[in-house]
């Protein structure tokens, strides 16, 4: 539509800075979560390289203080990944307890998270037992 009214519109678009995530604790926690990927890759690479070595070299490698430090940092990073991963899982799993048409109760998030931790504890025990006892 034509009109003679002068427009004063001049929308101001705020700039996006690369450090946008530093001003909210929530975003910092998210960036740490994403950064756990770096040490996950490091651990996978470490496992792959170790798998090519003899047991004596593996033992010697793991005794290196720098390696111990990296492994402890990696464990912390992996635990942070695990906690955030398990806590977010219920949002991706939305299911009713039964298929009954009148059942409106969703499986509670707490139940899903508990099941994940039970599973993780079992996996932890199985791996320890397998590595210590089976060979």
């Amino acid at each position, binding site marked *: 539509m034509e009109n003679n009214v002068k427009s004063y519109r001049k929308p101001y678009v705020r700039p996006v800075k690369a450090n946008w995530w530093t001003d909210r604790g929530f975003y910092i926690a998210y960036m740490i979560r994403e950064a756990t990927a770096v040490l996950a890759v490091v651990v996978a690479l470490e496992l*792959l390289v170790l798998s090519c*070595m003899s047991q004596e070299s593996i033992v010697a490698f793991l005794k290196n203080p720098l390696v111990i430090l990296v492994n402890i940092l990696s464990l912390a990073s*992996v635990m942070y990944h695990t906690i955030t991963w398990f806590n977010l899982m219920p949002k991706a799993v939305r299911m009713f307890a039964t298929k009954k048409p009148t059942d409106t109760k969703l499986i509670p998030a707490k139940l899903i998270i508990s099941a994940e931790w039970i599973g993780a504890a079992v*996996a932890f025990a199985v791996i*320890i037992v397998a590595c210590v006892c089976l060979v």
Partner: protein
Amino acid sequence: MSTRRSDEPIYWGLFGFGGMVIAFALPAILTLMILQGFGVDCFKLAAIAKTWWGAGALFVIVSASMWHGFHRIYHGLHDLCIHTTRVHHYVLYGLAAIFSLAALVIYASKFFGWCA
């Protein structure tokens, strides 16, 4: 606006599987590695890699962690305001693929005794 269907489901699937594998397997493996570092003789990787279950599990753990990690790194670049292109995509997922292939060769040769 593009109309091309995203091929992200493939990478997202591998990322999700890898995230699960890391959460379930790496805490125990890292604990054993750290204990071994302090002199507790518990991380018998050389022997485990020669068993069928050990070689199989290690292949899954290594490759799944790689796909998970490189997927997050790829999207993390974008979060850090680095404009990602198909080149970044091919390089990072390419690395995940190469390491997975390396893992396949290494664990297969361990299991079949092609090398020490």
